[in-house]
């Protein structure tokens, strides 16, 4: 393995690790202001949506809101199943089966 690759990996590990661990090590030590806690409670839904929407709506770099976007189409049965069952497992199975079915049908 080249030295440069080793160094790249080590630096990548460092710049990834610090933001991951620092808040855990620092923020668990004292009580956060009430306003910050209220802000933090919206972080999960915000960050998960910010990751989800682009992964479903952006196909090959562009916005795809049409019916040929199988990721968008498969979101409907997935949502229906999670709403009815509240089960992560069933939702994922539904999503995977829907996408493979849509591809098989040539959508």
């Amino acid at each position, binding site marked *: *393995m080249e030295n440069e690759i*080793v160094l*790249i*990996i080590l*630096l*990548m*590990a460092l*710049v*990834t*690790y610090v*933001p*991951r*661990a*620092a*808040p*855990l*090590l620092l*923020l*668990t030590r004292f009580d956060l202001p009430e*306003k910050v*806690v209220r*802000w*933090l*409670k*919206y*972080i*999960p*839904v*915000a*960050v*998960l*949506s*910010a*990751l*989800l*929407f*682009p*992964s*479903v*709506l*952006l196909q090959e770099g*562009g*916005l795809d809101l049409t019916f040929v976007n199988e*990721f968008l189409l*498969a979101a409907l049965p*997935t*949502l229906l199943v*999670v709403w009815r069952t*509240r089960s*992560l497992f069933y*939702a*994922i199975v*539904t*999503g*995977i*089966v829907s*996408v*493979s*079915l849509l*591809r098989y049908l040539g959508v």
Partner: protein
Amino acid sequence: MINHQAKDEPRDKNARSAIVKGMKDATPIVTGYIPIAIAFGILASQVGIGLWGAVAMSVFVFAGSAQLIAVGMIGEGASMGTIVFTTFLVNLRHLLMSSALSPFLRNLSRKELAWFGFQMTDETFAIHSAKFRVAVPPALESFALNSTAQLSWVGGTIVGVLAGGMVKDVEGLGLDYALPAMFIALVFMQIRNNIYFMVGALAGTVAVFLNLTGFGAWSTIGATILAATSGVIVEQWKTK
């Protein structure tokens, strides 16, 4: 001796069931990680960072999208500084995830917190944030979940590198939808009232917009901060 056993047995049993529960809860992540890790391994073998380079990246960096981006950049011959800075930007979002989980992890030791942070990914965060809202499980359960997720990531990487060009297109299986489907379900479960709904819709829309306008590396963190702040503001209006 006998006393000692009698005392330790239930504890061992609890430990074992916590580990099993954690591993089970990692199943959706594993389903999503393996195909992506294989894809990463294949790409890594093509740019010539070797089996050990790819495995080292999956062990020490453990960040899906950043690893795929980095391998692409190595293939294009980008400079070390560019690769490291891009990785930093792309992974900075974990700062927010780690902050959001911190109120639930106050009983962990510093060593445990340091280890927990190491395995904080979008997916482990997603599952933890859903679980912690109901009840914070024993630390062992969370560590079992994190480690199972990482093992599948490293395992998939090895398979991908070894398989190299042999693996044909796995798209037909729809496994590339495992993680989007998991996020759909977890976002849905996070929505407790109209404000949460608004925050999610706003974050998602802004993230798409930032991606389309060339701010891809900032999209997650920018959209998240904007939407969560809006949530607090709307909440304040409503209570007035």
